[in-house]
């Protein structure tokens, strides 16, 4: 090794080691796996500080609401979304996130009302699909109609996941028939098994509705078992395949 090469190696190594030491000083002892959660907490702190002086910033409020939502601080999330709506009454994203939060709080009536508002503001396929998931609880007769609109809009706008809209539409078609023939529990079981990703709380509500109707012992056991699996599932959003696979 020439002296020049040795010197070059030493200089490069010192630069790299200095870089590593500097990064260590900056980031403290956080591990990479902890940083996702911690970054959410630190972002909450930063946004809270920022909003103390910029209370009327809708984007920051909306962002903080989402951070609270991910941190399962639903009441705080709702207050932030309401603040955005106060500032910008036509902010469809704020209404949409407000509905998501109400669903996770099991406040389905409020979520349903908010979803209707979302459709008024942003009449796209996803808004209609989301509305139809709550229609089945309050206005079952309109659920299929809204799912059809969602499917038509998805086809019209050439959405990537048209099959997803079609799958939900087909499930609601079946649900509609079963409701009309008085087979309430089977109708909800059709929706549960449709493999559409739904909020945990909404799936539990569907199961509750199915159990409240007339069910045979075997189906009742199946639903109770499913309810147990949903409770133990960590994610807030899941579908039937998540449960059947594990």
């Amino acid at each position, binding site marked *: *090794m*020439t002296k020049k*090469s040795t010197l070059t*190696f030493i200089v*490069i*190594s010192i630069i*790299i*080691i200095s*870089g*590593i030491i500097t*990064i*260590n000083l*900056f*980031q403290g002892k*956080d*591990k*990479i*796996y902890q*940083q*996702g959660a911690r*970054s*959410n907490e630190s*972002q909450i702190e930063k946004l809270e500080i920022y909003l103390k002086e910029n209370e009327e910033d809708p984007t920051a409020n909306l962002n903080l609401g989402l951070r609270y939502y991910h941190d399962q601080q639903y009441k705080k999330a709702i207050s932030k979304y309401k603040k955005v709506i106060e500032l910008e009454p036509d902010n469809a994203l704020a209404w949409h996130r407000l509905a998501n939060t109400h669903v996770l709080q099991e406040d389905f009536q409020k979520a349903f009302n908010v979803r209707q508002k979302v459709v008024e503001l942003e009449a796209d396929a996803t808004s209609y699909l989301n509305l139809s998931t709550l229609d089945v609880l309050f206005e079952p007769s309109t659920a299929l109609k809204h799912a059809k609109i969602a499917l038509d809009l998805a086809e019209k706008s050439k959405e*990537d*996941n048209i*099959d*997803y809209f079609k*799958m939900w539409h087909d499930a609601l078609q079946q649900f509609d028939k079963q409701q009309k023939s008085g087979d309430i529990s089977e109708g909800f079981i059709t929706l549960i098994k449709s*493999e559409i*990703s739904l909020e945990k709380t909404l799936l539990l509500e569907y199961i509750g509705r199915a159990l409240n109707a007339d069910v045979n012992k075997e189906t009742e056991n199946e639903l109770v078992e499913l309810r147990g699996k949903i409770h133990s599932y960590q994610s807030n*959003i899941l*579908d039937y*395949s998540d449960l059947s696979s594990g």
Partner: protein
Amino acid sequence: MIEVMKIELYKIIKSKQYIFLVVSLFLFIIVALLFMFYNRDPNEINLFSLIYQVFAFNSDIFFPTVSIAFFSSIITKEFQDKTIKMVIGSVYTRQNIIIGKFLASSIVFSVAFLITVLTAFFIAYLLPISSIIYIDYEQLGTLNVFGRMMLITLSTLVFLISFGSFAFLVALIVRNQGLTMLIAIGLLMFYILIPSPDWLTDYIFIGKGVMFYTAFSFLEIPYLEAIKTVLVCILYLLTFIICSTIFFNRFELKDGS
């Protein structure tokens, strides 16, 4: 050094050593891609999770194994074909020979890896996936997702080349392809199977693939941690190359070649 590098590049291409590299990388990536695609609900699959799974499937064992096999073969082939004395007897310095060989191997490896991964991106894009982004990534745009994929690819490439430099050194010492692979893969398996203390995992180059695909899957990317890991890999890479150079110089004196 540039001259040596050109010669080495020519040798790699002429000896068709790159074919094994491209075929094995392609097989591992495509098999993982299709396996992940057909084993999940098509309505849930998205481009980012698919590519993430490809790296998660391969970065721990398969990619490093390919890297070990390729880099060690560059050295052991010279011993196997008994061309090492010709190499030593050439007009170039030992240091230039080793660094030139390593740089040429790294270029071929990088090109093969990037082409294969980009092909996989393209195939994944053509697959009937439900969306580009994962539901939790709803705030991200397509460009952001592709940027993340490229960052995973490039950082994994640095990790693989650092692993290659380790195999390069071991191959120079043991002069046998099988034994080199046994030692390098053995070390890799030991690291994976035996839990290591935190201070060690932070500052060792082995098993860093998992860091990259994990880091770039977070909504808020921990850039500092990713940069630190890349720097650790580069530091090891430099150290192994310097050790290889020192060893190669001693090797000349020992053998009297």
